[in-house]
Structures are given as C-alpha cells and as structure tokens.
C-alpha cells in the first residue's frame, strides 16, 4: 500500500468532512466543537501546574515577612509593613499598612508610589467591590482615599482583593501584638523549598488527575463519532461507485482527522478565550491572570498529536464491527452478543495493579505512581467497557409499558451501543468522583480536625490590645449591630518566684463572663475563686492557697516597665468547678473578679473578647469587623468554624470540585449534541408521528426515558465501581473502609441532574423539529 494512496484517501475524507453543504458543515462543526472543548480542557490542565507555580512565584515576590529573627535597624532604605488583613463576608482581603523610613524604601511589586497617610492603593477587584453598593460596609472599614491601583505584578489573581494603605507611627505597633516587620526588600527566598508531598496527598493528586482526564478522553472519543450514521451512508455510496472497503475506512479516518484537527484549532481558540474569561471569574477563591495560563509546550505538543491520532484510532475501531456494503451499512455487531469476560478483565486488571500497594499509606512508603495511574485508569476504562454490556443485557429484558416507554426501550434495544456511548463519560466521571469522595472522606480525619471551638457559645473572638482597658472596648462591641453577647476574659500568669518554676493562670472577668469558664457557687464583684477540675494544671492547686506570694514573670514584668510585681493570694477564695470555655479549654488557676484585682497587676493582663453573633442580622460579622478596624486597623477578629482543614488538602478537594464541575458540564454538552443529532436524523419520523396525533408530551417522555434508562444503569455501575475503587484506595492508605453514602448520592444525583438538564434543553429543539415543516418534501 503506497503512501500516495493513503494520503489521497485521507485527503478525500478531509474534503468529505467539509463538503456536503450545510449538513456536512454542521456535522464537522459539531465534531470540532466537541473535540475543541475537550482539547481546551486538556490544555487548561497542562497549564494548571504552571499557573499555580506562577501564583507561588508572585506570592513569594511580594512576601514581606522576615523569618529570620534579627531586626533591621531603621535606615534610608527600610520600610515598616504591618498586616492589616481583613475579611469581608467570606472574602479574604489582603491588607498592609506601609510606612517608608526613607526615600529609598522598597516599593511592593505592582505599586509605583507609596500611598500617603490616609490613602491606599487597591487591587482592581477591591476597587470594584468598594465602588459597588455591596461594598458599603467594607468602605466604612477601609476608610482611606483610593489613590491608585495595584498592578498585576503585585497580585496573585485577577480577582484578588488587596490594598496597601499609608500609615504613621507603625513602628510602635510592631512592639505590640500587630504582625509585621521592618524590611529592606520584598520577596523571600526561604519560602521557596516546600516540604515533600505526603504520599497519600500525592496519591490524591494523581487520582484526581486521572479521574478528571478520563472522562475528557471518553468525551473526545464520543465527539469524533458525531454524525456517524450519516457518514456510514455516505461511505456506502462511495462503495457503490467503486471504492473498496479499505479505501472507505481510510476515507472515514480522513474525515475524523479533519474534524479533530479543526477541533484542535477550535480548542486552542476556546482555550485562549477561556484564558481571557478566566480573568473575570473566581472559582473557589482562586482566580488567575490570563498570562498565568501557559500550557507547558511539551504537553501541548502531546495533546496536538494525541488527539488526532486518537480520533483516527477510534474511527477505525468503531468501523470494525461495521461492514459497509455498496447498498448500505451492515452492522455485524447485532448478531454477536456482547461478551462479558474480556470486559471484566479490565477492572479486575486494575484491581490487580492496585492490590500490591494495599496498606502502604501508613509507613510513609511511596506509592508507585505508574501502578496507581494504570490501576485507576483500567478500573475506570472498565466502566466504559462494562456499560455497553450492562445496557444491552438489561434493556433486552425490559418489558413493554406505555407508548413513550415502548418507543424508548425499543430504540435502546436496537442501538444500545449508541446509548451506552452517550453516557460513558458521565459514568466514568461519577465513578471516579465517588471513589475520590470516599477517599477524601476517609482520610479527612488526618487532614482536618474538628476544632475545639464551641460555635454555639461564641462565633467570633477579638483581642484587646495589651494594657488597654477592656471595658470600654467591650462596650463598643456590645453596641455593635448583630452582637448578642460579649464575654470578656483577661488573663495572665504569675510564678512562684522571680525565676518561676511553676506558673499559675489568673483569669480576670466579671461574674457573667466567669460563668463561661467555671461553675460558680455564687458571685459578687470582689470574689476570687480557685478553679478545679482542669486536667492540664498541676501547679495551681499548690499555689492557689491564701497567703502564697506570687510574682510576675520577668519577661512580662519587663514589658510592664521593668518593675517586678508581686501579689499575695487573698483570703476567702472559694472553689469553683472548671468548665470548657468557648475555645474548648478547661482553665485552672485563679478566677478573679475585677474588684479583687489590684491596680498594679492591670498592666499584665491581655484580654480577649468572645462574641456571640445573631445570625439573623445580615452582615453581623462585618459589623463586628468594622468595629474592630475602627478600634485598631491591625486587629484581626477571628471567625470560628467548627472544622479546620489542612490548606493543601483543601486545595486538592477544591481542585476536584472545580474539575468535576467542568467535566460534567462538558459531558452534558456532548450529551446534548448527540441528542440533538439523533433528533435531527429522525426529523421526518417525528413529524409524521405528530401528524397522526402523537402528543408532544409522549415524545418528550420517550426522549427522557431514552436517556434516563442508560444513565440510570450507568450511574448504578459507576456507583459500584466507584465504591470498589474508593475501598481499594482507602485500603491503600490504610484507612478503615467506610462508604460515604452522602457523596455517593450527591455524585449520582449530579449525574442524574445533568441528564435532566440535557433532556430539558433538548425539548425546545424537539418541539421545533416536530413542527409539520418536517413533512415537507417539496
């Protein structure tokens, strides 16, 4: 077989792909759009590592924290930076107060001039937020005049909220609780090397990638088969005029090639378009600049080669079961029932690959990446191999029902392969997602811990600057809109002597607040209690005895003006049973009402306010934050959550959610496309059915059944395989196997939702197609 002949036949196929008038173009375009979407997603995937790296690089470049302990003396080229981060609703705002010490002070990246006192430069997204009606509360908090915007170099994402405000006397704040530093340059090198990945996390990342990319591959395979029936008829016509069966196969390959190459072009277009759009969206708090999204050249080339090759391969494989005769297409697939055994081999093979790695997670052993990827892929491909068999077997046994049901079932019986192909993508995506969710739920305990905070008692806490009187501050918060209750707890430690061996905690609070930390036998101002029942406290009992002299620790006393302070435990202290305070901590030591606290000790106390917020008041949290900012722009009120999670773990989970959303949307689109194609091919039939009085409801229902039956089976299979894979992965990480039913249900629910949406979206075209115009032949 000569190369010339090959190229001639392929070329003919390419011409056929675009010839054939509007129909031909539409079909080629559908294929191309399908492949294009897949390619765009692949390119995006190849660009993600680069984008994340770029974010990291910029984060490092603007880093203003010195991790070295040494303090830089004030100089011409130094700058004082104080953190003034804040949170607005659930949006994080990165904030810094700047005060240059001299004319040569370093400018942060993306900022061309230091903001003057009372002014700030903001990121474009923050500017937009501040200018909007929504941003009213934040405007009150960031009460600076906007004097400019931060350039791209100073931001890690297009939607990042950030500001730099000019400050005065910031150096003084550094001595206090404020976080900040005097620096002579931005950027840090010691952030660079991060810890090696935990093997379980690495396993998660690998599985996430496989799970997300598999459906895309399945999708591309389905896309190159758009318009297959029409093409087969055209090939039959070619056979009639004398091309042999090999030639027709090559011509078909040429058509697929043309569609996929056009798809590559479109995909690149989509990608570039998406890159621009990426600037305006923020997904799960991650936004990027278009310039971040550069696919790695090697991977891009791989995509460019693999997609057309896969397209040709899929076409040739698909034509294997088809004999194209001059007078029509004969499918040999019909007589031979699908066999089960080789289809089972795939998932079993996958299990076999994963089996040796069972239980490796705990001893820190590394997973073999190739085995993991191979095993997971085989299991997931197993879904696509098993599904046609399952659909065929089940559908063949379905009995007749109503007309809509009968139409759907009969169609499925005749072409179960087409139906299975349509839902393969969703099944794979759901199976993978279920497995991952199980894995996540299983290892969640390792990476998230339930915080000890009791969010039913308080939802926020805020520190009062050391040494300042807590009462007026507490009053300010009490007056803040949406605050129900303020619990003020001040504490400090005293030692048994100057160089203390043993320490006792002293908690100062009024009676109401003290009841939050202990069960009191009764309380009046001036009372002192000894808290009992704390398991952490061994020294207290010894020291909390009337007459014992206690000394302020040297470091603390140093802060209080280098005066050594002592205090003798007074008489008449009563016993109180300690209980968990809102932070989940049982205190020991002495509990003192303000009336019993001698003035000389007041300088020692540091105070934290615990706020109980009325959730029914809109933006209650932000009112609190505004109050906090008014009192101290560097204060950072904490909002309590019942769960804290490891950042990196959270990032992976976020990635999975983003990816699954994209993949399901993509598959939904392909379902819709093939659904519409089927409907178009049946236009004449549909119109004649309507002509003799078929209700459109019946037709719509039959379309729904036609999708719902294979999807239902697909989801069932997906749930089974997904749970099996999840169980294996959990065994691999040595975590006890438990089925996360909620995620199984939610993932299958989402899959089912996609079907419903697709059916709904295909109804208007269905109604349009069933208009009697379809009957017109003239």
């Amino acid at each position, binding site marked *: 077989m000569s190369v010339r002949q090959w190229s001639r036949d392929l070329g003919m196929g390419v011409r056929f792909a675009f010839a054939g008038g509007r129909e031909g173009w539409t079909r080629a375009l559908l294929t191309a759009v399908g492949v294009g979407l897949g390619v765009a997603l692949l390119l995006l995937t190849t660009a993600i590592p680069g984008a994340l790296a770029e974010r990291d690089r910029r984060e490092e470049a603007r880093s203003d924290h010195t991790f070295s302990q040494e303090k830089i003396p004030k100089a011409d080229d130094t700058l004082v930076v104080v953190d003034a981060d804040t949170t607005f609703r659930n949006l994080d705002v990165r904030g810094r107060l700047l005060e240059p010490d001299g004319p040569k002070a370093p400018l942060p990246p993306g900022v061309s001039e230091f903001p003057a006192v009372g002014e700030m430069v903001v990121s474009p997204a923050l500017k937009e937020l501040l200018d909007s009606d929504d941003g009213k509360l934040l405007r009150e908090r960031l009460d600076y005049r906007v004097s400019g915007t931060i350039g791209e170099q100073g931001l890690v994402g297009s939607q990042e909220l950030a500001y730099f405000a000019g400050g005065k006397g910031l150096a003084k704040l550094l001595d206090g609780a404020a976080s900040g530093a005097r620096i002579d340059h931005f950027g840090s090198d010691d952030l660079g090397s991060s810890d090696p990945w935990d093997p379980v996390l690495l396993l998660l990342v690998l599985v996430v990638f496989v799970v997300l990319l598999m459906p895309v591959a399945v999708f591309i395979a389905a896309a190159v088969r758009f318009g297959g029936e029409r093409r087969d008829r055209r090939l039959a016509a070619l056979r009639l005029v004398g091309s042999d069966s090999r030639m027709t196969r090559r011509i078909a390959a040429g058509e697929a090639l043309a569609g996929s190459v056009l798809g590559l072009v479109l995909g690149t277009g989509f990608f570039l378009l998406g890159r621009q759009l990426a600037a305006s969206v923020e997904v799960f708090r991650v936004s990027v600049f278009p310039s971040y999204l550069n696919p790695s050249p090697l991977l891009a080339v791989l995509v460019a080669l693999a997609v057309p090759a896969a397209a040709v391969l899929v076409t040739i494989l698909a034509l294997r079961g088809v004999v194209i005769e001059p007078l029509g297409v004969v499918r040999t697939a019909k007589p031979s029932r699908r066999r089960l055994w080789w289809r089972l081999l795939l998932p079993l093979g996958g299990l076999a690959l994963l089996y040796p790695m069972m239980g490796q997670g705990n001893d820190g052993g590394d997973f073999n990446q190739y085995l993991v990827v191979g095993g997971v892929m085989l299991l997931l491909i197993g879904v696509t191999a098993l599904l046609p068999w399952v659909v065929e077997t089940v559908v063949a046994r379905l009995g007749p029902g109503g007309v809509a049901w009968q139409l759907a079932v009969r169609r499925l019986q005749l072409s179960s392969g087409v139906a299975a192909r349509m839902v393969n993508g969703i099944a794979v995506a759901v199976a993978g997602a279920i497995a991952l969710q199980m894995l996540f739920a299983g290892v969640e305990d390792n990476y998230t811990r339930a915080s000890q905070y009791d969010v039913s008692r308080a939802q926020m806490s805020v520190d009062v600057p050391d040494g300042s009187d807590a009462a007026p501050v507490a009053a300010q918060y009490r007056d803040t809109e949406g605050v129900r209750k303020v619990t003020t707890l001040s504490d400090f430690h005293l030692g048994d002597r100057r160089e203390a061996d043993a320490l006792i905690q002293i908690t100062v609070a009024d009676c109401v607040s003290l009841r939050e930390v202990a069960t009191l036998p009764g309380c009046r101002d001036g009372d002192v209690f000894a808290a009992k029942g704390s398991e952490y406290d061994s020294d207290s009992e010894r020291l909390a005895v009337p007459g014992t002299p206690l000394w302020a620790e040297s470091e603390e006393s140093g802060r209080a003006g280098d005066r050594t302070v002592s205090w003798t435990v007074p008489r008449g202290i009563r016993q109180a049973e300690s209980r968990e305070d809102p932070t989940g901590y049982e205190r020991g030591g002495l509990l003192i009402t303000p009336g019993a606290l001698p003035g000389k000790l007041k300088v020692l106390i540091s105070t934290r306010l615990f706020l109980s917020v009325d959730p029914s008041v809109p933006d209650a949290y932000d009112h609190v934050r505004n109050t906090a900012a008014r009192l101290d722009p560097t204060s950072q009120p904490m909002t309590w959550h019942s769960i804290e999670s490891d950042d990196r773990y959270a990032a992976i989970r976020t990635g999975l959610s983003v990816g699954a959303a994209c993949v399901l949307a993509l598959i939904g689109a392909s379902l819709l496309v093939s659904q519409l194609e089927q409907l178009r091919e049946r236009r004449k039939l549909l119109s004649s059915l309507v002509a*003799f009085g078929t209700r459109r409801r019946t037709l719509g229902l039959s379309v729904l059944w036609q999708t719902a039956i294979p999807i239902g089976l697909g989801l069932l299979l997906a749930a089974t395989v997904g749970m099996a894979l999840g169980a294996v992965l959990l065994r691999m990480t040595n975590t006890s196997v438990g089925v996360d039913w909620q995620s199984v249900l939610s993932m299958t629910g989402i899959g089912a939702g996609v079907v419903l949406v697709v059916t709904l979206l295909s109804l208007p075209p269905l109604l349009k197609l069933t208009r009697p115009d379809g*009957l017109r032949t003239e």
Partner: protein
Amino acid sequence: MTIPAGSLLTAQDLRKVYGPTTALDGAGFSIHPGEVVAVMGPSGSGKSTLLHCLAGIVMPDSGSITYNGREVTAMSDAERSALRRSEFGFVFQFGQLVPELTCVENVALPLRLNGSPRREAERTALAWMERLEVDDLRKKRPGEVSGGQGQRVAVARSLVTNPRVVFADEPTGALDSFNGERVMELLTDAARSANTAVVLVTHEARVAAYSDREVVVRDGKSRDMERVV
C-alpha cells in the same frame, strides 16, 4: 361558497405563505364520507400544504376548514392533535414507520396513543395487517421489509383506528407501479368498505384513477374538476 350538503370536510379560501413562497392562495376543498378525492397538480403547486391544512397539521394564514360541523382553525393544538389521533389516518411517502418498533407495534401505535391496552391494540392491528396481506411481517422491523410491504403496513396503521378520513400524501411515490397499484387497491377497498374518506395527494394519473374525482391545485389555487364540468 357554502358548505356542500353532506360534506364531511370542507375548506374555503385557504391562504398560506411560507416565507417568500405562497403555498396556498385561496384554495378550497370538500369531501364526502366514503369518497376518495385525488389532489393533483405539478410539484410545488401547494397540494401537500393543502393536505396539511385539511388535516389540521398546519394552520392556514386565513380561510376556514370545517370538519363535521366544527371549525378546525378555531381548535387548539391539543384539540387538533386529538382529532388527528381519533378521526384521521395518515400515509406518507416514506419514513413514517418507527424503525425500532416491529410492524405490528407500528400498526398498533395510533390505538395505543388513544389509550388502548397493548394486547388489544395489537390484536386489532393484526386484523388490519391480515386485511392488507402483511400479517406475516408482524415480528419484523420496518428495516427488514420491502418498500411495498412497508407502505401496506403504513396503510394498515392509517386505518387501524377506523378513521373518518385518511390523508395519503404520495403513498405510492416510492413504489414501482405494480406495488403502487396494489397499495392503492387495498387502501381504497378498505376505505370504501369502512365508509372512510380518502384525501389522496398524487401526481400519478394511474394512482389518481383510484379516486372518485380529482381536485387540481395550481399556483396555490384549487379547481374541483367535477364542479367545472
């Protein structure tokens, strides 16, 4: 023009425009129960549009259509669908049988759309298939039968609900003359014995010869040849 006495289905002064083309321009039509009327005319003359209007598939832009004393143009889409389901039957040139259903299921389809139970519908369907001499095809799918057989199945389907009117749009258009005439013979025989009217759109004279009279449509205007002569 008044409605002729005893007329089952009458159309008056129908106008229908599809985009730039005027399909019907004042066409009229009338048919009595049990009558077979051929609608003839050159391609593009509007004869199919006339049939679609008469059957309530397409609404004319103006004019009136009266079926059994009821104004079809005043009916809702659902009412017209119900009318087509229960009172009308249809035969088209091709592409009307559902390829996934067996022949008997295809024939039974209109009955089932009317709510008949499956078994009963298929029993009635089979009786009609016997009458059209295609009962041996009951288990076959439309793709496995010849064109002539398929049309006979379609004719059986059009008659299975005992309709008052059968609309046949080029029912023999895709058949050779032998099969075409056989289909026409069976269709008109069955229709006459059931007192079913047949509106037969055709351009073939030999097919039209199975009618009782013909209406000629040209440039969207109709001419009832019996009234003229």
